C-alpha cells in the first residue's frame, strides 16, 4: 500500500492482506540497497495469521519515492514515524543487516512504540570494505556482484531456493539494480560505515529481542552477531547452520519458524 511518511510517498507490502490498524503491527526493514521484496517468505505468513504487516521500502528504495536517507539515525526515526503515519501506536520490528542498525535506532528514539525486536544477520557496527564502498558509490555493477557473493553462504551459492524456480543470487541482484546503485546501495553502505552508535544503543535496549544469525555469514560474521546479542539484555540467539547472510531467503523456512515462535511468545494476538 502507498501512504505518506514525513511527506514522502512510501510503499509497503502488506503481505497480500488489506492493512488493518486495529491488528497488531509488525514492520519489516530491509538491508542495504534492497526492498520489501526480500521479505515475501515471512510477511505473507503473518499477514494471513491475524497481524498487520508492513514490509517498508525505505525512502528512495523499491517503490517509495524521495531520496535515500543519509544516516542510520534518520532511517530509525523515519521507521518510528511509519507507525503513526498508518494510525498505529505500537509495533514489533524485524530488521535485516542494515535494517538491524535502523531498527535498533528506532527503538532508541521511540522506545514507547516498539514491543519486540528481531535482528537478522545483524552486528553492532557494519564497517564497509573500502573498495566495495567505492564501487557502490560509483554505481559500478561489480558492487552488486560482490555484495551477492558475500551475502550468500557456500550452500547458497549453489542455489536451491525454497520457492521453486527462483535463483536467489540473481533475484537479489535485480532488486538492487532496480534503482541507480549509487543512490541506494552507495548511500546505504556509507550510512552503515559511518554509524558508530550500535554498541551503546544495544546496551540500553530493554525489550524482548531475538537475533537470528547465519553460521556462514560473511557480511556480518557470526562472532559479531554474537557480540551484538551479548550487548542486549536477555537477547535470544538462534544460529542457522550452513547459512549465509541472506537467511530470510537462503533458509526461509527455518527463519520463519524461529520468528513465528518468538512473535507468538512475546507479541501474541489478542485472545
Amino acid at each position, binding site marked *: 500500500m502507498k501512504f505518506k511518511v514525513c511527506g514522502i510517498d512510501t510503499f509497503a507490502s502488506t503481505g497480500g492482506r488489506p492493512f488493518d490498524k486495529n491488528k497488531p503491527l509488525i514492520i519489516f526493514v530491509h538491508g542495504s540497497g534492497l526492498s520489501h521484496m526480500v521479505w515475501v517468505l515471512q510477511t505473507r505468513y503473518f499477514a494471513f495469521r491475524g497481524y498487520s504487516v508492513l514490509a517498508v521500502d525505505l525512502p528512495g528504495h523499491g517503490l517509495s519515492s524521495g531520496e535515500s536517507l543519509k544516516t542510520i539515525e534518520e532511517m530509525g526515526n523515519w521507521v518510528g514515524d511509519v507507525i503513526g503515519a498508518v494510525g498505529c501506536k505500537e509495533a514489533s520490528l524485524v530488521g535485516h543487516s542494515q535494517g538491524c542498525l535502523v531498527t535498533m535506532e528506532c527503538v532508541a528514539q521511540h522506545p514507547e512504540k516498539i514491543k519486540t525486536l528481531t535482528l537478522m544477520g545483524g552486528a553492532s557496527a557494519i564497517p564497509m*570494505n573500502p573498495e566495495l564502498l567505492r564501487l557502490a558509490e560509483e554505481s559500478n555493477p561489480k558492487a552488486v556482484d560482490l555484495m551477492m557473493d558475500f551475502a550468500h553462504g557456500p550452500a547458497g551459492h549453489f*542455489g536451491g531456493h525454497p520457492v521453486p524456480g527462483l535463483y536467489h543470487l540473481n533475484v537479489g541482484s535485480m532488486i538492487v539494480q532496480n534503482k541507480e546503485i549509487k543512490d541506494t546501495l552507495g548511500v546505504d553502505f556509507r550510512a552503515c560505515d559511518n554509524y558508530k552508535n550500535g554498541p551503546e544503543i544495544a546496551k540500553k535496549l530493554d525489550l524482548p529481542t531475538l537475533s537470528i544469525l547465519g553460521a556462514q555469514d560473511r557480511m556480518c560474521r557470526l562472532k559479531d552477531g554474537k557480540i551484538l546479542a551479548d550487548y542486549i539484555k536477555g537477547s535470544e540467539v538462534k544460529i542457522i547452520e550452513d547459512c549465509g547472510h541472506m537467511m530470510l531467503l537462503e533458509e526461509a523456512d527455518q527463519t520463519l519458524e524461529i520468528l513465528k515462535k518468538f512473535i507468538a511468545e512475546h507479541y501474541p494476538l489478542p485472545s
Partner: protein
Amino acid sequence: MDPKTYKFDTLSLHAGYQPSKNAGSRQVPIYQTTSYMFDDVDHAAALFNLERGGHIYSRMSNPTVQVLEERVCALEGGTAALATASGMSAIFLTIMTLCNAGDHMVVSSQLYGGTVNLFRLTLPKFGIKTTFVKPRDTEGFKKAIQPNTKGIFGELVGNPGNELMNMPEVSNIAKEAGIPLIIDSTYQTPYLCRPFEHGADLVVHSLTKWMSGNGSSMAGILVEGGTFDWMQNDKFPSMTEPYEGYHGLSFAEEFGPTAFTMMARAEGMRDMGPCLAPQNAWNILHGLETLSLRMEKHCSNALKMVEYLSNHDSVAWVSHASAPGHPDKELAEKILPKGTGSMIAFGIKGGKEAGAAFINNVKLASHLANVGDARTLVIHPASATHSQMDEATLKFAGLSHDMIRLSVGLEDFEDIVNDFEDGFRAAKKPRLVANK
C-alpha cells in the same frame, strides 16, 4: 577484488542443487511422485497461499524439475524459470500469461513452423492476434506495434532460414513501447548467447534440443530476466492489479523481478498444467552437464560444414551467419562471439526432387523432425516441419522448395562429409535413385 560466484561451466554442473539437502546424493534424485506430505494444516494453508516455498503437487512444481529450472536460470543469468512439457508449451504459457483476449503480439516471421501456426491459427481462437514482421525488418517491428500490443516475440536466429533479428535494436523498440521482448533462444543455448545481456526480458527454450543434446526427452522452459517493470504502464493488469485467484495478490508488487514466472506457475501451471515429467528433467540435466563441450564441437563442425557446402558444385546457396557474404555476419559476430550455432540451411541444385533424393540417400545423417541432437540431422522443411503453411506463408517465412535444413552433429567431420557425398551423388540422378 572480484566476486567469487560460480562461472558458467561450474553452474552447468552444480547450480540449483545441494546434496546435503538430499541425503548426500551426488546425482540429482528423481522425485517420481505426484504429491508432497504437509506437516500440518497450517503448513498446507501456507503453501497453497504462496506464504512459503515448497511443493504441493507435481503439476505445479517438483524437486527434480526445480533443479533444472534453477540451473537453466543460473546459466541464462535470469531471476526465475519455469520448466514445461515442451518448448511449445513454454511459448503458449508465456503468451497466455502475458495476454488477454483482445490483445496483440508482434512476431518475427521466421520461426519454427509449429510456432507460426500457434500465432497464426491457434492464438486467434483465444482473441489474441499477431502481426508478423520479417526478422531483418527492424523498423517493421516498430510500425507493427498497436495500442493493444503486449509483446514482441522472435527467434534470434530464425528457423529455418538463419536470418538474424537485431535483438539490441528490437529491444530498444520494445522498451520505448513499454512492452517486453521475448526471445526463443533454443538455437543458441546460453553458451552462445545470453539474451538478457542484449535487452531481452523473457527467454524461452525447447530444452529437447542442444540443452539436452541426447534426443531422448521433450522439455521446455520459460526464463525471466527480472528486467521488465510491469508497473510502468497500465498494459498488464493481470500482473499489477489484485488477482482474485490468490486473495487479491498483486504479483508485480509482491514478487518484483520474479513476478512473471510466479504468475505463470500460479495461474498457468495450475489451470493448464503442461508440467515436465521428473524423469525427463533428469535426462535434460544430464545433457546440461556437457553443454559447453558439446556446443564447442557443434560450432566447429558447423564451420567446417559451411566451408564444405559453400565449395560444393551441387549446392546452390548456403545460409549460416558465419558464411562469407551472409547479410547478418557482422551482427552475429557481435551477439554470438563464441559461434553462430550448428544449424545450416542450404539449397540443393535440382530443387525439390534433388532434395528428396539427397535426404533419401544419406545414411549417417538422420532424417527426422528435430534439431540439436548430438547426431547430424537433415530434413526438407517445405515437405515436413513447415508443410502446414501455404505458398504465401512459406515465401514470407523465407522458405524455398530447394532448402534442406541441416543440424550438424558431433560425429567425426570426415564421416559426415562421406555421407553427404553419397547424398549429393544420388541428387544428381534423382529419378534413378530417389526411392532407394
